Structures are given as C-alpha cells and as structure tokens.
C-alpha cells in the first residue's frame, strides 16, 4: 500500500508554559494514495493545525511527517509544488478579478504565460465560475469565493488535494457540487483527496477512509467498512429478523443462543444484539420451527454517526491505529 501522507509522532504545541496548548499530540497517521480521506473531528480537534504543518505553513514542535515522500520541514517546497491546499479562512485579492487572482497563483507555480491563460480558463469553467471570471473578487459572495478557492487548488494540477472545511458557508447545492467534483477528481483523475471537516453527515458518505480526531489525537482511522466491522466486534452486532407465524417459539429458541446480548420484539420484527455475526445460526434455528416464515435477516451496519459518537466520546489514551 502506498501512502501519500505519513506522520510519525507529529506534535504541535502552541505557546509555552502554563498557556501551552497541544493542538496535535504525537500523531501517527497514514493516508492511502487514491483515497478520499475524511479527517473528522469536532472544533478544536487539531485538524487545521495538522494540515498546516503538512503544507509548511506551521512548523511542527516535534515528530516528523512525509507528504508524497517529502519531509515536511526540509522539503516543504517540493510538497507545495504537488499539493493543492484549500486553507481554512482563506482570502483573495479583492481588487483583482477571479482570473487575475488565479493567474497570480499559477505564476507562483512557475506555469508559463500561455499555458496559464488556458488552464485558468478551463479550471474556472470546471468549478462553474466562468460567468464571473472578469469580476473583482471584492464583490463575490461566500459561495463564489469558495469555488474560486477550489479552483485555486487545481491550478498546479496537484497529486494530492487537501480541503480544510471546504463547504463552510456554502449552500446545499454548492456543497453537492463540491462533493460531485471531489468524486470526479478522484475517479477520473485518480487524485488523492483529504477533507477536514466537522460536518460528518455532509462529508462522511463521500469518504472511502476516515480518521477521527479529537483533542489532537487520532482516535480511530482506516477504511470506513473496516472501522464499522471493528466497532461491531467491540460493541456487538445488531441483527434484525422479520418473521411471520409462530414468532413466540422462535424467540424462545433464539434466547437460548449463548451469543445473545439482548433481544427485543416489536410486531413481527425481532431486534437482536449479539457478540458475533450469528445470522447463519439464526437461519438454522428458524428452519426447525414449523409454520415460521422468515421474511428477512439483516445485519445493521453502524452508521457514521454511531462511529463518531463512539469514538468522539472515547477516552483519550485508548487510541486505535488503523
């Protein structure tokens, strides 16, 4: 597996003495090439501090990290050549037009003039800003600026894109457009994408991988399905059986299963919590009851929200590395 980001005890402490704040605390994380990785965490978790260190805007207090194989301190310039960053709380030059702003950023990336014109035009179209490319950014709405900020990350044709709160202040339509674009960039151009956000519900479903961060530490990270699997193993599996017929006898039989943690019946639906995935066993027992028709047996996957709630509230110190 190839990783585009690898951190090694990466730490950032703001201030010193009594006022010291450890924003990122001995963090070890990996982001897979080709993934859409969500760095999820509540306000103040340290997401912004982390990405600012990765892109050379903040120096780490201790620890090391590599982005695309380059050291974040010694080879920051190489990183910034290949990584597009949408920073939190960004701004543009108000007195310049959208096109002029992008042109300047393209020039900073050493893109020659003719190519710059072409690329800026294409990218403005791609993010749906073509209509206001010649207007001064000072008069832009929040959403228009956001599009420009996304456009800005694409100018250098980066291998890796890092978006910090990309949909902050964007309307639902804009958020959807953003997500569609991210999927497209990932699928069609194979770009690796990292999205930092506290908006679990909005961004979660987009991600192939997540890393949940709280108080400067990763509480859990990895592929969404793997994490769900692990959570089920820790917390128990939830299975729902819908049946018709002699449900009473069936329930009595199920209760004798030693893996059962709890069981509830509501109408024809039996909700079971078990220590392992006992769907096959349930089927077997059901077959032994005459006049019982099993309509469905489903395993309920934990939602991202479940994951989030579990790992957010988890004590620091119980750190699971993916």
């Amino acid at each position, binding site marked *: 597996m190839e990783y585009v980001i690898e951190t090694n005890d990466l730490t950032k402490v703001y201030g010193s003495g009594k006022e010291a704040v450890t924003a990122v605390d001995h963090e070890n994380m990996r982001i897979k090439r080709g993934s859409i990785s969500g760095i999820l965490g509540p306000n103040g978790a340290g997401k912004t501090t982390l990405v600012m260190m990765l892109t050379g*805007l903040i120096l780490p207090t201790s620890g090391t990290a590599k982005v695309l194989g380059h050291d974040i301190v010694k080879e920051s*310039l190489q990183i910034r050549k290949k990584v597009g960053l949408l920073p939190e709380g960004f701004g543009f030059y108000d007195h310049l037009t959208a096109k002029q702003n992008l042109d300047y950023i393209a020039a900073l990336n050493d893109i020659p003039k003719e190519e710059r014109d072409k690329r800026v035009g294409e990218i403005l179209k791609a993010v749906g800003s073509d209509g206001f490319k010649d207007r001064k950014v000072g008069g832009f709405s929040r959403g228009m600026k956001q599009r420009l900020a996304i456009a800005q990350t694409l100018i250098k044709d980066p291998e890796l894109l890092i978006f910090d709160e990309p949909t902050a202040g964007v309307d639902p339509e804009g958020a959807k457009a953003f997500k569609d674009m991210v999927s497209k960039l990932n699928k069609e151009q194979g770009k690796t994408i990292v999205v930092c956000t506290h908006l679990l519900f909005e961004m979660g479903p987009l991600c192939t991988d997540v890393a949940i961060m709280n108080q400067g530490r990763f509480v859990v990270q990895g592929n969404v399905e793997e994490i769900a699997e692990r959570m089920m193993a820790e917390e128990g599996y939830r299975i729902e059986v819908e049946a018709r017929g002699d449900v009473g006898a069936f329930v009595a039989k199920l209760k004798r299963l030693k893996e059962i943690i709890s069981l509830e019946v509501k109408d024809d639906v039996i909700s079971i919590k078990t220590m392992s995935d006992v769907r096959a066993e349930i089927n077997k027992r059901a077959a032994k009851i005459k006049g019982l028709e099993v309509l469905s047996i489903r395993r309920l996957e934990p939602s991202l929200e479940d994951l989030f709630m579990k790992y957010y509230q988890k004590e620091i110190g119980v750190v699971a590395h993916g």
Partner: protein
Amino acid sequence: MADVFVVASKEFSDIVRSKRFIVLVAIFGLIMTAAMVTVYVSIVQTMPTAPGGPPMPQRFLGTVAYMLISTMPLFGAVMGVALGCDTISGEREKGTLKIVLAQPVFRDTVINGKFLAATLAVSIAVFITSLANVGASIMILGVTPTGEEALRLALFMVFSVLFAMTYYGIAVFLSTVSKKTSQSVILGVTVWAVFTFVIPIIATLVAFTIAPPIIRPPSPGEPMEMDIESIRRYTAIVETISSITPNHHFSKVGQYLLNPYATTGGPFPPQPAQEAASVTSSLIYAGPNILVLTIVTTLAFIASYMVFTRQEVR
C-alpha cells in the same frame, strides 16, 4: 520555485494603482509646488536689493534644494510607512498569505518581491514629483542647471529613495510582527513621529540642560555676542542624539549633496564660504550617513526575514 519578479510585478501594479499611492504622490507634488512658489516669491522680492544676486549655480541649486530638503523627509518617510505597514499583516488579515505561501515559493521571495516593487514605485514617485517641480523651477526662474547640479539632484533623488526604503523596511518589520494592520499602522506612525518630532525635541532639551549655548546680552550699541565654543558643544549634543533617527542622516546627505559649500563641520557656526566641494567630496562627506541608512534598511529586512520565515501562518 517562483521568481521574485512574479511577486514584484504583481505588487508593483498593486501599488501604483492604489489610491493611497496616487493620493500621496499628488499631495506631495502640490506641497513641492507650494515650496517652490515660496522660494520664487522670496527671490523676486530680494532681487532689487541684490542686483546680480549670488552666482547662478548656487542660486539654482539653493532654490531647488530648499524645495527638496523641506519636503522630501516628510514625503519619503510617509511613503515608506504607507506602503510598508500592511505588507505582511494585510495579507495575513485578508487570508491571502496562506494561499500564497501554500504555493512553491520561499518566504524570502515574497518579502524581496515586495521590496523590489516598493523600491521601483517609490523611485518613480520621487523622480516624477521632483522632476516636475525642478522642471517648473527651471522654466520659472529661467536658469538651467549645470551638469554638476543635475548630477547632485539625481544623487539626492537616489538617496531619497534609500531614505524612503529605510522607513519602508521598518514598516515591513512592524507589519511582520503585528497581528493586525491597524496595529502596524499605529506602530509605524509612532516610530515616524518619534523620529521626526520627539527625538529632535528631546535632543534640544537635553543639550540645553547639559550645555546651554551662552549668548551674552548685547550692551547698548554693540552686536549680540555668542560664545562660539558653547554653541559648538550644544550643537554636537543635539546632533549626537538626533543621529539615532534616519531623518538626521538623510538631512545630512541632503545638506552635503545640495549645498556644495557644506563641509563636515556641522551646520553651526556658519563657515565662511570656502571653495565649493566637488560631487565626489560631497559624497565622501555624506558617506557615513549613507552607510547608516543602508545598514538600518538592511537590518530591518533581515529582522523581517527572520521573523517571517519562522512565523505560523494560520
């Protein structure tokens, strides 16, 4: 890696199109014109009493010198502070800094580019306002400067740019360490006011306390008598204290370059007109002052680099 000229050309076009720059150039153009008119009127008034007047070269240079010396310290310093005080803090506040610094560009390049752009813009401002007024004085007074005078004027303009860049450097440093532009503006104006008004006053007060110049009251029918030695000491103290300001060094440079009769003896007591110094000699006299301005400017930039390259940008 982005070139310093990428930053410089953007910054330059930003500066020369900014209201701030245009307004400052216009105001100082007018102030210079007013200074020139004052000189013109006083010359016209003294004409009849001094037929023939002093030799032409001295008068031409003297006229223009008055105009430039009286306005340039203000212009240079205000221009420097006005252009410098939001260089970094302004971009930090707007959030453009993190976008710029997330590109493959060294932080020094950003400061160098801005410095280059400001130098060019200030040069243009100094040359335009000075040349327009010098041109006007030539036309009004009907005298043409000699080659040497033209050279002296040109050199003065170059060092005016240096002086403005000294203030610019200080302002850039303040803007690097300040979180907000409002803060760096206040600091910049304070530094300027301290150097321009407070220190000269303190210098006078201190000199007056330590070594008051002795002036004997005139006995009836006799001219006032001054104790030359006491005045020399008084002046030396004033100059020593003032020498911590860039303004002092710039005004020295102005005196040496625009008045060929100025020597290193200090302005007081007035020396009898000796032989005029050559341009080279004037430059040599002004050398230490030019060096001080250069060093202060360089130090201000080094300090800015050191702070800026380590700074957290978020």
